[in-house]
């Protein structure tokens, strides 16, 4: 049984069909990519899977169980972690607090602990903090843990967002254009981190990318989405040589 299975999912925004008849299967540990021109519906697919939107049609199964209709926080706690295309960070919070916050669903000290600062709370907060530092270490941000997130440069913010997504302990990590707006140096760092995360945690990763170089290098299977429909699916080579992809997508942008 695949870890995540999507059957015939469609979504309408008013009259606009943003996603049409979308299918996907992700096996544990697999790295998949989703490419397509701007406005193709890639982010909408992520938002549908993570529960921000409800699909108009179709079903989403995690470990064989439907997750359609669950709240986003329940889906996240169920093992679908994500980052956002436009970096949704919490501007008044520190780097450390970001990564601690993402472990919210593991907190068991309850309101009594929160109100009265019980020993159980102190212990759990210390554990959460330790885990947060481990993850910040992994993305190379531990030394800036006390900084407010808004004081960091863009590339660093992206890496904190990655650590935050990992803190939810996902089984599948959804990355929405993780290298968007990065300079070449930051790009290399980020690709290195994605590889490391994959090998260290054995996560499945589903990657939306605009830079073809990144998807081509990282992903085993790539889907190409145009106007909400998958027009091609296959390995990097197959995609690169698919005439439909070349016409719809690669024709307009050269491969870097």
């Amino acid at each position: 049984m695949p870890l995540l299975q999507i059957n015939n999912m469609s979504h309408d925004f008013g009259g606009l069909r943003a996603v049409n008849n979308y299918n996907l299967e992700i096996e544990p540990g697999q790295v998949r990519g989703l490419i397509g021109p701007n406005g193709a519906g890639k982010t909408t697919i992520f938002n549908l899977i993570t529960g921000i939107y409800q699909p108009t049609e179709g079903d989403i199964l995690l470990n064989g169980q439907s997750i359609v209709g669950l709240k986003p926080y329940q889906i996240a706690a169920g093992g679908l972690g994500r980052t956002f295309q436009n970096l949704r960070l919490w501007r008044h919070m520190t780097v450390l607090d970001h990564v601690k916050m993402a472990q919210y669903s593991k907190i068991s000290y309850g309101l009594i602990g929160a109100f009265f600062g019980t020993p159980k709370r102190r212990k759990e907060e210390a554990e959460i903090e330790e885990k947060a530092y481990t993850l910040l270490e992994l993305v190379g941000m531990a030394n800036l843990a006390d900084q407010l997130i808004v004081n960091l440069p863009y590339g660093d913010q992206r890496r904190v967002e990655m650590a935050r997504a990992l803190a939810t302990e996902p089984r599948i990590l959804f990355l929405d254009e993780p290298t968007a707006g990065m300079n070449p140096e930051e790009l290399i760092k980020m690709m290195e981190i994605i590889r490391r995360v994959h090998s260290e945690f054995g996560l499945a990763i589903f990657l939306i990318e605009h830079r073809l170089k990144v998807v081509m290098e990282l992903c085993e299977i790539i889907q190409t989405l145009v106007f909400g429909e998958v027009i091609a699916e296959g390995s990097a080579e197959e995609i690169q040589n698919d005439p439909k992809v070349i016409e719809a997508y690669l024709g307009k942008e050269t491969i870097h």
Partner: protein
Amino acid sequence: MVAINSGNLAEKKTLSKRIRDSFSQVPLLAWFCGFLVAVLLERFVGDPLTELLGLPKIPALFGAVTVLKKPLLIPGTLAFLLVIYILPIIIVPRLCAPVLNRLAGWLFNVSPAVSVAIHLGLLYGILHLWADISGYRLLTLKLTLIAVIVTLSLNVINGYMGEFSCSHPGFLALGAYTASIFTLLFFVDDKVFGSALLPKFLGPFLFPVALILGGLVAAIGAIAIAVPSFRTRGDYLAIISLAFMFIIKSIIENLEFVRGPRGLSSQPNYVDLPTVFIWTVAAVWIINNFVRSTTGKALNAVRDDEMAADAMTVDTRRTKIVAFLFAAFWAGVAGGLFAHVLRYVNPSTFGIQKLAEVLAMVYFGGLNSVYGSIVGAVSLSLLGEALRPLEIFKWIIIPLLLILVMIYRPTGLIAFKEFNVMNLIRPKEKT
């Protein structure tokens, strides 16, 4: 020309930096000693000194009232303040700093809890001595401490959670009336509720139950706002909570069994200074615990980006509802205290003017900050009292002040600062 200017500037900088440095090594314990010396001085030499300076009596609120009424007394009042307050509070802490740093360090090593207790004991002593001078001071102090609870609890919603709620006067009213009905019914022979149902000596012991009941009733009232407001994303809270405030007020005005607009009076005299102090400390401690936990910081995540909070496993709806009820609870407790300090309540107290007062304290002091709420509540309470002789002009000066703060510090005086008690009581030595 340029060289001279920049030279001056550098000198100024080093001077202000030097002053700041020398004060940054003063531990809280030494500050408390400074205040203690000041209030003791006032107690023992205050009377002779007022006579010497030709003042009618010890200035109740640092002389503001006297000065506004009789400008001729300005020099005398200033001299009094200088001798009794300013000099001791500047000199004593710096003189005692080395010794008290060692003492603070030793206490902290023995047990932070003991150190906290000693600090609180000192603080209480200072307040007690200060308030002992006159009944007016005592009343002002009690109301100020209650204002701290109210402000802090509203800051949980408007600051930490970033929603705009207007319902606090309603919660205060629910708490005030619930606690009053409880004490009047059980422990007082009065015309409204008949003779006392329980032995009167139990009253003071069961008074915490009255306050907690008041808090719970306020929290139940809050459910009526929270459920519809937090169902969907959007800014319904401001409107629904404003409506709630007016509804509570008019319900009470029309309830004959609590005497409608005439209000309830002759509440028993249970709320002495220690009672208010303990409840205020409890409120600050519990609220501060909450907002510093990851559970509580979820409020900030919801405020700064709700979609991201959701995606990071935060149950955003529960987070908002819990915080809202929690804040309402403390407002209810404060309402109960308020009714028993004044020993009289009527519904007209809990209207738009109260709302403006509390909102001003929250936004003046600083959003998302326990320090801010304490500073906002204390400064505006005292200022409101001090400017009382100006009557109508008070309502021009205070809003002007607020506007200035909003221009220069849009989030308030001390916003977004963690209130870390452990750092506060630590010795402050050179590093």
